[in-house]
């Protein structure tokens, strides 16, 4: 059994501000000044934008050859926004008649689909987390089971002692179940509670008997003596016992019966009393954590474990949490030069909205797989994914990976943001990503993180020399916001929208390029920053620190999205092919 880490849990939730808005009260002090600076360029304007205006100077005498379709898999969309409504995709095969005219499994999917809702038109905005769902799925098999180093044990409540687990245990799945502690508060509370049973038992039995051999008087034993108890038996260590002893010693060393400035170290008799007294708290914490798990899926009335089952959700795309996807949409396709709002990168694009992200909770991978397939089937050219997750249940991962392979086979570009958690992606993975299997790397999958107008990476963006492809403008960027308003935002989600916009722009003028080629064009033609030294947050032994990196240590391309250079390269490549 691995040593249980008693440090604080890291719960990867989408409740962490993955996407930050400037905190605003109901009053503004000045008209929100529009800063769609991704249009600018370092050499002409002194701002590390994506050189979109320069790209348009190059393209001014060319005509677009197709209107690219961009599928935004996210929080929905404000389809009536004054600067966006001309860019909303309209399904040519559906009519607003309550019927599934094209028999694709979704009725009245006019502009995309909302998977978090039901066919009665109700919206679902709060669902559970992946970790919680996995815990609930597997707990009957693995809850309360620990590995001693020699065998699996559990605490038998009826016999009131640890017993060996007799049925065979799937080690891989068991190890996966252990990881859920970092993904689910219920799993963590369960682990603490179940382990506490062992601790209490050993304290009152094995350890008590062992220490009484040397020190018969409870009231004279402190942590100093307790620490010396022999745990080994026949040269073998039961690691459950060992860790229990370790924790108990540590608790004893910090607990004291009196408290206050003149603390007395606690003695074994008082400590035993305390452990017995506080033991029910752990069960209470567990019960509370379980009760806190939201089952919002019930209202959707589908089977989330059957990826082939459709006919759930509805066509309502706009909710109060749609603002982040609405901001992405603006960066991609807000009308240019209409003297209104922001200038989007590819205003000729058509935006398809696929709502799978809730306001609270984490996505279902079934919805993600079906959303990707929907986009592919409806002829999207670019798919913009939402925030990735740290946990990827194997059977559900297969659904998504198969859908991504399907997208790849149809030449579609998939763009994904990173999370802004200061994580080194070579040490920890988030899903989905381009590595869909040990042998297979998707060549049409692009991962993006945010940079600011001075060309520096967003300090807390995830990074990885091989895992992160490119940086793009994502700090204090203005874009379209709910209710035909405009607002600034920060986050790698907005940076990914920039890349999706540039991909759409290339596709509009050079529709022949596949997702793989689009990725090469974008990654290979950036504003190079490779030997620039930058400050970046990272984790060193679980502590967040700020460190210095070279830009090219952080990502594959060593630079920032550059629409102008990518368009030039696309133009040159298109001539070669002829």
């Amino acid at each position: 059994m691995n040593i249980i880490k008693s440090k604080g849990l890291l719960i990867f939730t989408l409740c962490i501000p993955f996407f930050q808005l400037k905190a605003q009260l109901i009053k503004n002090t000045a008209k929100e000044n529009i800063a769609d600076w991704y249009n600018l360029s370092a050499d002409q304007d002194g701002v590390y934008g994506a050189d979109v205006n320069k790209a348009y100077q190059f393209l001014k005498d060319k005509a677009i050859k197709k209107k690219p379709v961009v599928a935004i898999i996210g929080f929905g969309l404000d389809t009536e926004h004054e600067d966006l409504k001309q860019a909303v995709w309209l399904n040519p095969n559906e009519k607003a008649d309550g019927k599934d005219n094209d028999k694709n499994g979704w009725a009245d999917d006019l502009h995309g689909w909302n998977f978090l809702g039901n066919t009665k038109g109700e919206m679902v905005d709060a669902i559970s987390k992946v970790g919680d769902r996995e815990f609930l799925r597997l707990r009957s098999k693995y809850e309360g089971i620990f590995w001693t180093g020699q065998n699996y044990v559990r605490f038998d409540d009826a016999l009131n002692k640890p017993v060996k687990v007799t049925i065979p245990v799937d080690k891989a799945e068991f190890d996966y179940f252990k990881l859920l502690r970092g993904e689910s508060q219920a799993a963590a509370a369960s682990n603490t509670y179940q382990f506490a049973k062992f601790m209490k038992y050993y304290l009152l039995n094995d350890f008590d008997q062992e220490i009484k051999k040397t020190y018969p008087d409870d009231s004279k034993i402190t942590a100093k003596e307790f620490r010396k108890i022999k745990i080994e038996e026949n040269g073998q260590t039961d690691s459950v016992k060992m860790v229990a002893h370790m924790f108990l010693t540590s608790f004893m060393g910090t607990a004291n019966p009196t408290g206050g400035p003149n603390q007395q170290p606690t003695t074994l008799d008082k400590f035993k009393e305390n452990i017995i007294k506080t033991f029910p708290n752990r069960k209470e914490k567990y019960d509370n954590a379980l009760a806190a798990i939201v089952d919002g899926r019930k209202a959707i009335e589908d089977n989330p474990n059957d990826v082939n089952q459709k006919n759930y959700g509805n066509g309502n795309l706009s909710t109060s949490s749609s603002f982040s996807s609405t901001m992405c949409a603006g960066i991609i396709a807000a009308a240019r030069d209409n003297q209104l709002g922001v200038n989007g990168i590819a205003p000729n694009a058509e935006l398809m909205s696929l709502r799978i992200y809730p306001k609270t909770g984490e996505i279902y991978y079934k919805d993600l797989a079906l959303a990707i397939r929907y986009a592919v089937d409806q002829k999207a050219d670019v798919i913009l994914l939402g925030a990735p997750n740290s946990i990827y249940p194997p059977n559900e991962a297969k659904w998504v990976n198969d859908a991504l392979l399907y997208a790849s086979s149809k030449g579609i570009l998939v763009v994904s943001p990173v999370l802004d958690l200061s994580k080194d992606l070579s040490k920890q993975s988030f899903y989905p990503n381009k590595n869909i299997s040990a042998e297979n790397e998707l060549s049409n999958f692009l991962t993006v993180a945010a940079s600011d107008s001075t060309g520096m990476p967003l300090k807390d963006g995830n990074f990885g020399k091989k895992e992160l492809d490119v940086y793009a403008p994502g700090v204090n960027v203005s874009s379209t916001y709910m209710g035909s308003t405009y607002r600034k935002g920060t986050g790698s989600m907005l940076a990914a929208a920039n890349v999706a916009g540039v991909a759409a722009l290339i596709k509009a003028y050079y529709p022949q390029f596949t997702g793989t080629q689009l990725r090469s064009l974008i990654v290979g033609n950036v504003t190079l920053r490779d030997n620039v030294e930058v400050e970046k947050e990272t984790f060193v032994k679980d502590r967040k620190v700020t460190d210095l990196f070279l830009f090219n240590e952080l990502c594959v391309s060593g630079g920032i999205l550059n629409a102008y250079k990518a368009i030039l390269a696309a133009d040159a490549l298109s001539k070669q092919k002829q």
Partner: protein
Amino acid sequence: MKKIIFFISLLLQVYTSMASEQMLIKGNIKSLSKITVSLKNLEGKLMAEALVQKQSESFVFGPISIVPDLYMLTIGKTTQKVFLTNTTVTINGYYDDADPQNSNLEFTGLEQHLELMTYIPKRIKDQVSPEAFSRLNGQQLSALSYLVKVDNYDYSKTFVEKIPVADLKSISAQHLLKKADSLKQFSTGINAPDFSLPDEKGKLVSLADFKGRIVVLDFWASWCGPCRREMEVFKTFYKNYEDKVQFISISLDEDPSKYKTALQEMNIPWLKLWDKSGFGKSALQASYGFKAIPFCVVVDPEGKVFKRNIINGVELQKALNAITKNKEI
């Protein structure tokens, strides 16, 4: 003929210039759910209300003539105090009823409001910067006084002094005047509240009896250790002022036996009076406005409070030196 035309056009001019001096709020708010927008005055009286929803996102309040002052603007779940004048205000944008902090609204025409808001101190206990009193107009100052913590008389006076009489009719100004009045009792220069309390022998003594002399009122109780300690300190210097100053210790003991015991123990050489209604219940204590003892007040020969809030012998001696030096008795 010409005369009549001239007269009519004059009338029209007057009418339009009057019409433009009214408050008008024009709004267009997009919201995913139905919300109510309303305007109330500080006393909660509803002045205007509108229901905003899809297809009906615009609303107008007014034109109405108002007294420039703070008003309560409610949009959905959020209420905010706004300083309004007889001008046009526009409100445009998006309101999120589920999470108001995700709203995105733009306001125009609120320059005076925004200006006065900049003078609200960052920490509640701080006072307003003196700059405010020269930069803001009387109506704004009145509104500002409503929004900040005004808890002493002199501070409240700095606001009242700046507000022209014509502007004192606003609700916030009325509130300020009431506040100033209630604070007055805790200031210096006012008449020290009189009393009629028994001395050791049971004879009733009043403050008025000492008109023409400086009086030290020392509020204490037998159970108050610091009071008794400071009284020992007073003993060391009171003789120096005996000819000009009458020392009076007023006990707030409820328990007569404890009071008597303390008197025996302490041997206080000056006048001792007893307010048996007790600490925290005494009306005399309320009129002098103190919540903790020891508490001493120096009253001048005219019966006005010279200094209050004196809590120890050092401060008392300083105050006595100050008042005796300035007076020729």
